[in-house]
């Protein structure tokens, strides 16, 4: 019940402030227009870089929203409400991550085909693109809770959060973009997708603990 009320509240808060949901998507769209303009290149070059670009955009547009997962709650004091409610902290972290995923990860997945079309990604790769993002965006949110918890009482922690989180996300990017790339090359993406799934299980297991530990230290 506590898990659901926290999840429900966060989704509601995000929904009330819709700019939080659509701004990352607008951001993606803006950046993706820069690629053809900057490269001055035709469909073939774009197609080549499409898997990587779609993936990097998904990563970056999620990254800019991570900072506030705990920071807002810390500032308005509602963090105390759920850390002192007797609720298990790792469970609270999972609820926060789930809410973050619903409000940023899910829109990114739904929006990914639009970006992919603009970059001439071969139609055969769309399914794998969405599947790989479906497995990976929860990892972004889960690791994001760790980063956000680490920097929650810093004024300008956004840059530091990227430095802390990016190295951990690098393998996810490699496997995810790799899966899409393999598909465009006509190879099987099974290996990459499996590795992504492994990353998901691992981060689901360890990230809530790490984030809970970071929150505890930060509240001391």
């Amino acid at each position, binding site marked *: 019940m506590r898990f659901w009320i926290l999840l429900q509240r966060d989704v509601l808060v995000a929904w009330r402030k819709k700019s939080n949901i659509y701004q990352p998507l607008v951001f993606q769209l803006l950046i993706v227009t820069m690629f053809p303009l900057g490269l001055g290149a035709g469909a073939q070059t774009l197609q080549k870089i499409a898997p990587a670009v779609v993936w990097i955009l998904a990563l970056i547009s999620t990254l800019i929203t991570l900072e506030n997962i705990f920071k807002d709650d810390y500032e308005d004091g509602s963090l105390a409400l759920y850390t002192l409610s007797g609720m298990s902290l790792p469970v609270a972290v999972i609820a926060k991550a789930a809410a973050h995923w619903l409000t940023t990860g899910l829109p990114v997945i739904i929006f990914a085909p639009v970006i992919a079309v603009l970059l001439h990604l071969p139609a055969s790769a769309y399914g794998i693109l969405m599947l790989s993002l479906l497995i990976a965006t929860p990892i972004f949110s889960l690791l994001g809770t*760790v980063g956000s918890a*680490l*920097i929650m009482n*810093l004024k300008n*922690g956004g840059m*530091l959060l990227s*430095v*802390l989180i*990016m*190295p*951990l996300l*690098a*393998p996810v990017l*490699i496997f995810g973009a790799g899966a899409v790339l393999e598909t465009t090359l006509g190879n099987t993406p099974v290996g990459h997708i499996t590795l992504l799934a492994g990353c998901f299980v691992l981060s689901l297991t*360890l990230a809530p603990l*790490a984030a809970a*530990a*970071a929150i505890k*230290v*930060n509240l*001391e």
Partner: protein
Amino acid sequence: MNKIVKFYHEMGSPPSFYRITGHWLKPLLILALLLTVYGLIDGLFFAPPDYQQGDSYRIMFVHVPAAWMSMFIYFIIGVSGIIAFVWRMKVAEAVMMASAPIGALFTALTLLTGMLWGKPMWGTYWDWDARMTSELILLFLYIGVMGIYSAYDDDPRKAARLAALVAIIGLINLPIIRYSVEWWTSIHQGASISIMGGNSGIKEWSMLRPLLVMALATKFYYLYSMLHRARSYLLRTEQNKSWVSKQFIEN
């Protein structure tokens, strides 16, 4: 046995740590310098050229020890991070934060010498293979540990605990670096020296000798530099304690 326990407890308290390690600094520095000079001369002039790479392989005498150190120091940071996080031991915090910049330096040196070696040998400065990428990520991890520490500059204790947490999370990268050349077939060669006594690597003593000497030299340099930094870290964070003011009066 009692002596070891006593020593352990002494090393755990900042004043005795400061006092005891004060005697070690000079010998460590001298050892490190002598071994470096010997190792470099031996490696650059006396070791025979390689049957494949000729003289270019000599950069290995810097590259390989630096690479070992980059991982070894991160391991130390991770372990002292765990100690600092769980038992809140101040000396462990000092060791952790003192090690980070040295580790970052060795990692950068590894990458740099690797690039200089790669250009003539492989034909490229950089290739995004698993070993190189994971070593680069190691550099980012060092930067992350130092970054989070300096971000919380108003409260060193909290900063150290958060940095310890980051360091512990980053430990996951170490096995990835270690096994990257085995898990992914890539351009980087396998380990030059195998503790398990594998069938490959360096067999020639005259080639092995400078490598081992340099490995020792870097260890001593690390110990010297780390202790030096850890001592000043303790002075800085304990500046209001009586033992610190006593130190200054004595000097």
